């Protein structure tokens, strides 16, 4: 059975001991964001997630969503849980107080997302998508649009969606066909078919606010001709209540591999009334406001799933008895077999899950904190530096954390043996739920291209230097600490390879762009391993200072996991490096018709 307790001690370790997140409370507007408030918020969030959302995860997967005549019904219990969720004000956490938000840092929002995603990723997507719509409207909408829609999205009585994909255009939005015709009153008539629209239709909220990409009649071709519109399911009355039905209908829902309790909809727009967000033809820019936040959010889905996968597998491994320990001294002769956690290969799986998850958490929270600094720091130079790092690390968080989420779920099935393959144990669901996270919000291949094609060359490599310089400086200062050498040695080696690979890819790509494409996924993974190694080195540094404290067991476990990462996981960088250096020629040799 799924086993999960919110890892609040782990979370506090990263927030308070590694990142010193208290620094956020020094930023204007975040004065209340102190560690004791974080604690109080997370305690309550954990209670709600574990008591209300987790029990609906397996039943929601089994039942799925129901579609009938354009109406979608979510699985039993979802409506009640959503009501509790919005009554608690959880949709308002990081939103602007001007629209009823609580004005808390994005970092705290990310942490709460981790808890939600561990317990029920399908549920989490309903408020998650609304938050994406909130971001785009808050940043690019007119005051009138903001006043009309934001308060109800913030309090959760209305939800939001992102309508991008069409049957023939997924990754390549330049192929878009949906049209927007001016109606002469400042609004537009939107027509077209959108597919794969998460939470496009549901029975949780009284109105659904679609953010839709479409082309104006005078639009230039390609992605430079796309505009963003807000299209409500019900047109709001003057008093703010939902009024007449707009011309947007859910045509069907998809039957899919995972996240079955979240509705994935075909949305048909037939002259639906909509209003422009931001400038005409500049919709992609607005959409990326949503996408960047959403990509971090998808990373948290990977993290959340890896955490519950680990906890479930660890509990099972301590309980399930099969075979004898290979070490006679460790055999338990009061029983006829030993718990499988005695077996080295089971430990290999559990520690691979855990050592990755803990470093992924540190990385994601660091990016969350940088996001807040990039918005609120009074010094423009600090803001720019943080913004650069967020831009650089977002594809890493999205791709690596979701790859790890899937791998961890898969390992959890393996630890369970045959029982892991059985639905009622709840573990195979994690695999199916995790699989989409590697695909949506830009496939992980697209994330890799974003990293090598966009982030690497940006401002003559300025973004890369924002990461490389602090790592170099850290290695240099820490080298004087003899207890740190066992962690710094492997990190320095991998970091050196990353720098060489970076120079090589940048140089080759300049002459032949296909080389960047060929190297991209390996390069993203190499970069990720170095970033996680950097996180582990910092976590080990904290643990070394506290290992003699009264929480000895916690810090000793940190050091063992740091060691495991350096000895058993980081070496993968060597193979990645060799792959990258071999270049991409061989990939392109086979003619397409030979496939």
């Amino acid at each position: 059975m799924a086993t999960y307790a919110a890892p609040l001690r782990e979370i506090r370790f990263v927030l308070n001991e590694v990142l010193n997140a208290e620094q956020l409370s020094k930023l204007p507007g975040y004065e209340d964001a102190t560690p004791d408030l974080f604690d109080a918020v997370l305690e309550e969030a954990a209670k709600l997630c574990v008591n209300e959302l987790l029990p609906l995860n397996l039943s929601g997967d089994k039942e799925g969503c129901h579609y009938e005549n354009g109406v979608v019904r979510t699985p039993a219990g979802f409506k009640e849980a959503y009501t509790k969720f919005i009554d608690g004000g959880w949709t308002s956490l990081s939103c602007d107080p001007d629209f009823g938000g609580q004005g808390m840092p994005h970092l705290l929002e990310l942490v709460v997302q981790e808890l939600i995603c561990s317990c029920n990723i399908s549920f989490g997507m309903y408020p998650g998508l609304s938050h994406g719509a909130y971001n785009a409207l808050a940043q690019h909408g007119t005051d009138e649009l903001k006043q009309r829609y934001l308060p109800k999205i913030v309090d959760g009585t209305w939800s939001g969606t992102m309508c991008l994909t069409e049957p023939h255009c997924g990754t390549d939005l330049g192929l878009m066909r949906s049209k927007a015709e001016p109606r002469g009153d400042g609004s537009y008539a939107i027509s077209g078919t959108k597919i794969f629209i998460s939470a496009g239709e549901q029975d949780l909220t009284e109105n659904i606010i679609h953010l839709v990409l479409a082309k104006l009649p005078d639009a230039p071709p390609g992605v430079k001709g796309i505009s963003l519109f807000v299209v409500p399911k019900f047109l709001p009355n003057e008093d703010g209540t939902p009024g007449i039905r707009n011309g947007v209908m859910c045509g069907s829902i998809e039957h899919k591999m995972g996240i079955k309790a979240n509705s994935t909809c075909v949305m048909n727009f037939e002259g639906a009334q909509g209003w422009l967000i931001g400038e005409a033809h500049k919709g992609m820019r607005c959409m990326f406001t949503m996408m960047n936040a959403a990509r971090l959010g998808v990373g948290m889905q990977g993290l959340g799933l890896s955490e519950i996968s680990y906890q479930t597998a660890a509990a099972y491994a301590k309980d399930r008895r099969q075979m004898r320990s290979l070490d006679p001294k460790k055999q338990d002769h009061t029983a006829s077999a030993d718990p499988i956690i005695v077996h080295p290969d089971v430990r290999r799986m559990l520690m691979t899950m855990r050592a990755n998850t803990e470093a992924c958490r540190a990385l994601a929270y660091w990016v969350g904190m940088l996001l807040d600094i990039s918005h609120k720091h009074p010094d423009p130079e600090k803001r720019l530096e943080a913004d650069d790092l967020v831009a650089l690390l977002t594809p890493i968080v999205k791709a690596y954390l979701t790859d790890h989420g899937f791998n961890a779920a898969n390992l959890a099935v393996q630890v369970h043996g045959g029982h892991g393959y059985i639905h009622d144990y709840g573990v195979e669901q994690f695999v199916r739920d995790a699989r989409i996270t590697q695909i949506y919000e830009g496939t992980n291949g697209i994330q890799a291209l974003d990293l090598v094609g966009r982030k690497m060359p940006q401002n003559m490599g300025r973004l890369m230097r924002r990461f490389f310089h602090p790592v170099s400086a850290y290695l240099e200062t820490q080298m004087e600490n003899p207890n740190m050498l066992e962690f710094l040695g492997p990190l320095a080696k991998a970091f050196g390879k990353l720098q060489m690979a970076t120079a090589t890819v940048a140089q080759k790509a300049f002459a032949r762009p296909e080389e960047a494409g060929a190297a991209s996924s390996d390069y993203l993974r190499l970069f990720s391993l170095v970033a996680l190694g950097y996180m582990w080195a910092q976590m080990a540094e904290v643990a070394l200072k506290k290992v003699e404290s009264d929480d000895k067991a916690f810090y000793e476990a940190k050091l063992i996991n740091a060691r495991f990462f350096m000895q058993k996981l980081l070496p993968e960088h060597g193979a990645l490096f060799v792959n990258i250096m071999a270049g991409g020629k061989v990939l392109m040799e086979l003619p397409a018709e030979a496939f």
Partner: protein
Amino acid sequence: MKLLVAVKRVIDYNVKVRVKADQTGVDLANVKMSMNPFDEIAVEEAVRLKEAGIATEVVVVSLGVLQSQETLRTALAMGADRAILVQTDAELQPLAVAKLLKAVVDKEAPQLVILGKQAIDDDSNQTGQMLAALLDWPQATFASKVVVAGSEATVTREIDGGLETLAVSLPAIITTDLRLNEPRYASLPNIMKAKKKPLDVIDPASLGVDIAPRLTTLKVTEPPKRQGGVKVASVADLVAKLRTEAKVI
């Protein structure tokens, strides 16, 4: 009407309790602590009385270490108006707690004091009763339903034989049982507001109460491990064993 609710910070009900190696007590180092579940029910009941317009102010009080402030903040986030911590690192036994609470009651003059029937750490089930005796107020313990009207509270109690209904005149003491209500989740805005609500910390010495323990803990041990059972062949066999071996019938 002013209500006073007493809350205790205890080891979390989900935590597997470990006895210290030297048998002096239970290991509390780095263990998750939270509000005693019966006290959560007491806070919930008080907040509901306030929401129903019967109570005007809900004051929560805790006695113990500095970290009990977190427990008080939880109560404030659930809807209590202000908090008092009588801060001490000393071991507090039920009589000392009752005496300290009496001193707080004398100062605050509430019309009703609601407490959990017992705390899940020591399971004493004494404080409410002792407080009633010290104040010479009526008491209604193990409440599963509370109706306050005018100067009287009608309380349904869970007793061995079923349910008993008592009317007590106010001021009075009520202790809560599990079925009284289901405590709410604190909402995010209320968690934020709780941070700004008043929380007074007072020194037990200023209350002029003798809190010296009257009982000495000799040692703390885990309950004996459960022995494996046996399968009996027949009902007659079972009855015989119950009679001759277990000696329960």
